[in-house]
């Protein structure tokens, strides 16, 4: 089964998550609200056929949620700092991170652009934004390759002890060199496809709200209002 949500619904879910989940309060109504909300990305991932990611996420969340409530109050000192750091990461940032992952992996860029056009966002934001979308994985790949190359030449943390600036220089400069190169290629490709044409774009991607969109929007919005009121 393949569920298709409108990119705008996905953005709404992500926004609500970055308001509700990242706040670390676990008292009162939050004890029920947060685990309930955190089920959403799980459901979404399962419905779009990403079972592995879904189950990995839900188990990581459950472990850190219970760890946070049970284990952290039991220990003291340095152990407590370590535990709470790890569990906070798992129960606060991880749900938003997974929602972001869901947004990026299940949305085609052209679909996303079409949705943003419907939101009447200026072209001046749509283009950089869609570039950013595509660029995070690229930068990570390039950085990884550069760090491997540098390690092969023996430029690692060892040299950084003597002169920390060199670490910055040997990592950043090659990265920026290739990023600028990729940027030039990308703009050439985009211009050939008529992105420089300032007329309104057409798209074969259908965007529009359907029943599942309304359902999920109601779910997260009611979650948000419960969070704000209580």
């Amino acid at each position, binding site marked *: 089964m393949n569920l298709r949500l409108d990119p705008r619904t996905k953005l709404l879910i992500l926004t609500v998550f970055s308001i509700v989940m990242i706040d670390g309060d676990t008292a009162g109504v939050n004890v029920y609200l947060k685990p309930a909300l955190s089920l959403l990305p799980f459901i979404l991932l399962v419905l779009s056929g990403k079972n592995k990611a879904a189950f990995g996420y839900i188990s990581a969340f459950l472990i850190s949620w219970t760890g946070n409530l049970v284990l952290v109050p039991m220990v003291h000192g340095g152990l*407590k700092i370590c535990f709470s750091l790890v569990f906070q990461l798992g129960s606060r940032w991880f749900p938003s991170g997974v929602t972001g992952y869901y947004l990026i992996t299940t949305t085609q860029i052209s679909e996303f652009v079409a949705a943003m056009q419907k939101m009447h966002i200026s072209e001046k934001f749509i283009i950089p934004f869609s570039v950013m979308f595509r660029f995070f994985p690229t930068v990570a790949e390039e950085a990884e390759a550069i760090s491997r190359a540098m390690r092969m030449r023996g430029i690692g943390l060892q040299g950084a002890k003597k002169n920390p600036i060199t670490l910055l220089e040997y990592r950043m400069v090659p990265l920026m060199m290739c990023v600028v190169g990729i940027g030039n290629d990308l703009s050439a490709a985009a211009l050939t496809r008529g992105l420089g044409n300032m007329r309104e774009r057409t798209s074969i991607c259908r965007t529009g709200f359907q029943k599942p969109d309304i359902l999920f929007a109601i779910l997260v919005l009611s979650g948000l209002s419960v969070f704000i009121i209580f």
Partner: protein
Amino acid sequence: MDNQKLNTKDLINIGIFSVLYFIMFFISGMLGYIPVFVVVLPLVLGVLGGIPFTLFLTKTGKFGAVTIMGILVSVLCFLVGQSWISIIFGVVFGFLADLIFKAGKYKSWKFTVIGYCVFTEWVIGSMLPMWIMRDVYFEAYRTQGGTEEYIGSVMNLTSGFMLPAVVVIGFIGGILGVYLGRAVLKKHFQKAGIV
């Protein structure tokens, strides 16, 4: 086409460099788990962001580019869990920096230094809750299971007079970063013919 307006190539460059700048922000934010770094975050960000930012400026010397970058970076910050105040700061400081760069016609070195320092101050938006919502902020930390040691040291570091100090620290970071950026630009990028 009018050369003063942002064209598609510039917009693509804005996207690319916003990603780089945001990664620098993320690295300096992660250091915030060590209490001292909470206060020197603008310094670290200023230094790390200097190289991408100077290159960015030389690639797109047009009005509006820095504003858009400020907005994009701060919206991303909001999505990864900073408070919404950072969006306002991103817009305002991005725009101010843009005005300064424009006053220097995107060429004058003096204006570039000042402009980058101003731009770096946007990060204070994400730190501001520590001061203006002090009680709520630290109370939240406590219920989240933050340890007393950490909270105590952060509270000591962020007493009232530290706010202006953080602004100054941001400026210092900006100056260091922009000089570093220029040095790297001269040493590498001009030689390689990229600028």
